[in-house]
């Protein structure tokens, strides 16, 4: 039989038990998990005093030192590596898949897994100090293809960014209808470094993607967004070798930045740019990418369609982008390569380039996972 007293007793009992357990945990958190203030020494020069108990990655982020991380601290991307000279304790099983034996010998750690529990000495590459957080205004947001948008951001504060063509920035996606937490996602810059007050990105809509859906469907011109960067070591190496660039999808962005930067600097190296797409409507900025040849004399743009629509007048390359590369590239002896796109495409391209004789250490890539 149902009665009010049964109801009250069950609610009371559950509440009492839960409150009791919650109190225990709150007290434990205040006493057991309280690590007080810790001192972090960076590169032997800079000293920070921080509150302990959280991961090194988020502690540093609070101090405005931004370590690249694509997964947001879940230990699944392996990007937030740092050298920790003292104070980190032993390796955790969650770090080991990302850290090689050589890196272990140099005390490389995943900063999202290491908690700040006592004083630490860490080493951060100097270029990460140039990583800053910017607020920026959406200057324009337009469709490049049916699923790729070009987002132009005008920097507000700080007003100027210094980066190398090919690097990427992270965009903060705020909480919105489809996501109840803030996330950072990384996108390559497509504008030239000489345009110091603008960051331009090419963003492809990923089905169910938190950040891309927000940019494609919720962001408007005039809105303010938060970004940080620049990150990454995908940039043009200063050599005399011929250059092969291969990209697919929004992988056009960093290549565009690299090519425009070369044009501005009057670079005379030979460049072939293979862009793989399904059909004509998937090509990103075909005219603009072809016209670069006016300013970059030894440049050739080779779009490759794997699946041209019926009845389309397409006299360019067809098939897989890797086959087109194999047809055009005679020998890889004097070549270095820059690849940007999906992991599958990059792995296939690395295979072809290696077979052609391009040395593995001269194949640079940025995998868009």
């Amino acid at each position, binding site marked *: 039989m149902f009665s009010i007293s049964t109801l009250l007793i069950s609610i009371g009992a559950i509440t009492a*038990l839960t409150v009791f*357990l919650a109190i225990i945990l709150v007290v434990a958190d205040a006493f057991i998990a309280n690590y007080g203030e810790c001192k972090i020494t960076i590169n032997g020069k800079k000293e920070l005093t921080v509150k302990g108990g959280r991961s090194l990655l988020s502690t540093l982020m609070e101090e405005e030192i931004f370590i690249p991380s694509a997964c947001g601290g879940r230990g699944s991307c392996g990007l937030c590596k740092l050298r920790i000279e003292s104070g980190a304790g*032993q390796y955790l*099983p969650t770090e080991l898949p990302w850290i090689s034996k050589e890196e272990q010998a140099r005390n490389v750690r995943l900063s999202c897994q290491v908690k700040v529990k006592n004083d630490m000495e860490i080493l951060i590459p100097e270029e990460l100090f140039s990583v800053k957080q910017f607020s920026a205004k959406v200057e324009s947001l337009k469709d490049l293809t049916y699923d790729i948008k070009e987002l132009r951001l005008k920097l507000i504060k700080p007003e100027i960014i210094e980066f190398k063509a090919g690097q990427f920035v992270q965009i903060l996606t705020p909480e919105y209808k489809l996501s109840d937490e803030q996330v950072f996602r990384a996108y390559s810059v497509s504008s030239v470094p000489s345009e110091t007050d603008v960051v331009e990105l090419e963003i492809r809509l990923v089905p169910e993607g938190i950040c891309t859906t927000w940019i494609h469907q919720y962001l408007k011109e005039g809105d303010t967004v938060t970004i940080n960067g620049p990150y990454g070591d995908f940039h043009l190496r200063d050599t005399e070798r011929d250059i092969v660039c291969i990209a697919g999808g929004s992988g056009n962005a960093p290549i565009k930045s690299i090519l425009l930067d070369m044009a501005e600097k009057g670079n005379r190296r030979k460049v072939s740019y293979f862009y793989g797409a399904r059909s004509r409507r998937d090509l990103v900025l075909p005219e603009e990418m072809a016209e670069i040849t006016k300013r970059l004399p030894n440049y050739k743009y080779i779009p490759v369609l794997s699946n041209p629509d019926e009845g389309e007048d397409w006299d360019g390359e067809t098939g897989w982008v890797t086959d087109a590369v194999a047809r055009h590239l005679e020998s890889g002896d004097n070549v270095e390569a820059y690849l940007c796109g999906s992991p599958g495409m990059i792995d296939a391209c690395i295979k072809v380039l290696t077979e052609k004789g391009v040395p593995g250490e001269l194949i640079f890539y940025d995998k868009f996972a």
Partner: protein
Amino acid sequence: MNADMMPAAIFFGAIFTGNILLSNYLGMCSFLSVSKEIKTSTGLGAAVIFVMAVTTLLNWIVYHYLLIPLHLEYLRFIVFIVVIAAFVQLVEMIIERVSEGLYAALGIFLPLITVNCAILGVSLFMVIRNYSLVSSFFYGLGSGVGWFLAILAMAGIRKKIAGASIPKGLEGPGITLIIAGMMALAFMGFSGMINIS
């Protein structure tokens, strides 16, 4: 009858004849995902032994001194889960503070265990089978040891077959589930010894 069983019999029964993983197929998700390496399997297995033994004890106390007197037995699912979650979180905090080595070896697995259904399963079986306090403790301990044994054996087998050529569609969880099935058949050989279910 069950209530009168010797704790020692329950302990060994829980390991061999009524192995929580191989006879009830509980705790499968972490069993499949963590059994790739012997070292991590050992860590997770040890954590399961500890948490199972202690939470079964705690849940017995909560059940018999809180739920039965108030006639709230039907709330045991939610209450047991809350107790397990709170306990695991507390233990993680303590381990992280006290011993760095233990945290690296064991503590890191604790959050995985909160949602391990074998832990809740053991607490529920203890109620169904009407165990006494001592028996419950040994049942929890035995189930933990049984789970540990099963994942360790699986990790060993997976290491042996690491170089084997397995049909494409069966790689990973597929072949692991088949092996788990064979292990369960092998463990059925013990079933004549002690009957705890």
